[in-house]
């Protein structure tokens, strides 16, 4: 488990990555309800929602400096 850097909600990064399906031509598919992620400065960050991730995309330094409570 990790924490959404924007709102502080718990995000299960393993669940966000676990394979729940397969595309027509063989790529792993994941469950969209399990949050999303972003590759930032060589590291993946996990978010509970696209909404939180958009805030992070706009101002990553703000959320990395001061973790949400």
């Amino acid at each position, binding site marked *: 488990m990790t924490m959404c850097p924007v709102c502080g909600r718990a995000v299960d990064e393993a669940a966000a990555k676990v394979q729940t399906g397969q595309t*027509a031509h063989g*790529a792993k598919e994941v469950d*969209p309800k399990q949050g999303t992620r972003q590759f930032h400065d060589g590291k993946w960050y996990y978010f509970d929602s696209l909404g939180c991730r958009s805030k992070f995309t706009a101002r990553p330094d703000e959320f990395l400096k001061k973790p949400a409570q």
Partner: protein
Amino acid sequence: MNFGFSPEQEALRKEVLAFIKENLTPGVIAEVEGEEQEVSAGEESAGRKGLARRGPHLSELYRRIGARGWLGITYPKEYGGQGGDRISQYIVEEEFARVGIRVGLVGSGAPAILAAGTEEQKRDFIPRLISGEYSFALGFTEPHAGADLANLRCRAVRDGDEYVINGQKIYTTAAHVATHIYLMARTNTEVPKHDGISIFIFPMDTAGITVRPLVTIQNNPKAPVGTTYGAARTNEVFFDNVRVPKSALLGGENKGWRVGSTGLNLDRVGASRYLISVRRDEDIVNWLKENRHEGNSLGDDPAIRDKIAEMWIEAQVCRLMTMRSMSIVERGGNFTYEGSAEKVWAPEHGTRITEAITQMLGPYGQLMNGSPRTIEKGIFGHNVLGSFQSGINHGSVQIMRDQVARRGLGLPSQRKAQGARK
């Protein structure tokens, strides 16, 4: 200058129409509708395998279309095409697109391969894109790179004879049904941003690719055939240490910006892109002719007739712009802003006509697919949603206007203009 079709072209259109009449069987129609439903099935489709492969009726239909020489008409014969002319392609595409059958290569990525691919890439990809065995998902947009695409951060790092890719894409239409991804990634971080980008094409089953469904306004309820441009479902795509051979590179390392933008521009040339807008005019004209609404024929109403005529005139502009683009490309002319102009007019015409239809039909125009009282499977309501979609995807109308200003009118680029004002 002759705006008419030649007798041979008129004969071709007749031949295509007769072919469609004979071959558009209920089995084919069911598969076309089924395919569209599967492609747009969104979250519910996650987890099922083997979607969007052609059924037996469609496979046979495409075999017959191919036997007539109507697939890949303008592509060279050595790459599986017919070495034919654009206007023939236009006629064939237009008539098949009207019945929901895709025969053109609009949005396929094929023009970029023809322009920038190695001999091996041309021989591998073009015949299979023409036959439909291969299809690409276009991996351009990222959370921090859309209209400002050159900001993309997805990284590809050279490691011996391979590249290692890490990063992500968003709004990747059809990643769930495509055989390959056509990916723009950063291969150099030390140079100006446009000069450090490369394009890679590799199979979707390459280890390390993850697809996360991202459904759009056209997904639920499901959009009927012909109301969306492309698949209704998009995706996020993640790349975790994805290793691809250097032969996956299209057009050389760090040459991706030019290859990609030229390819995107050429990929807009074709009848199917404009037809989605014009079909809405045809749909409402046919509906008004054939139906009475709450006891009246709406086609008798002067206000409605006036609006329909106005919109039909606009629709003809879409058509003429498309034909102009095709004719420029046919003559090998310099094709720079014309496709962009078309990509502003047709989507915005689509928005105007669907809005007008909503007014004419009142609440009936807003009943969606699956509603028990819906008319024409909800096409009018779904068209409203679809019209917004095509103003954003494959280059938004604002970006297209910027290209018209720069390439067509010779105005300074936005960045330079902003710099000058400071």
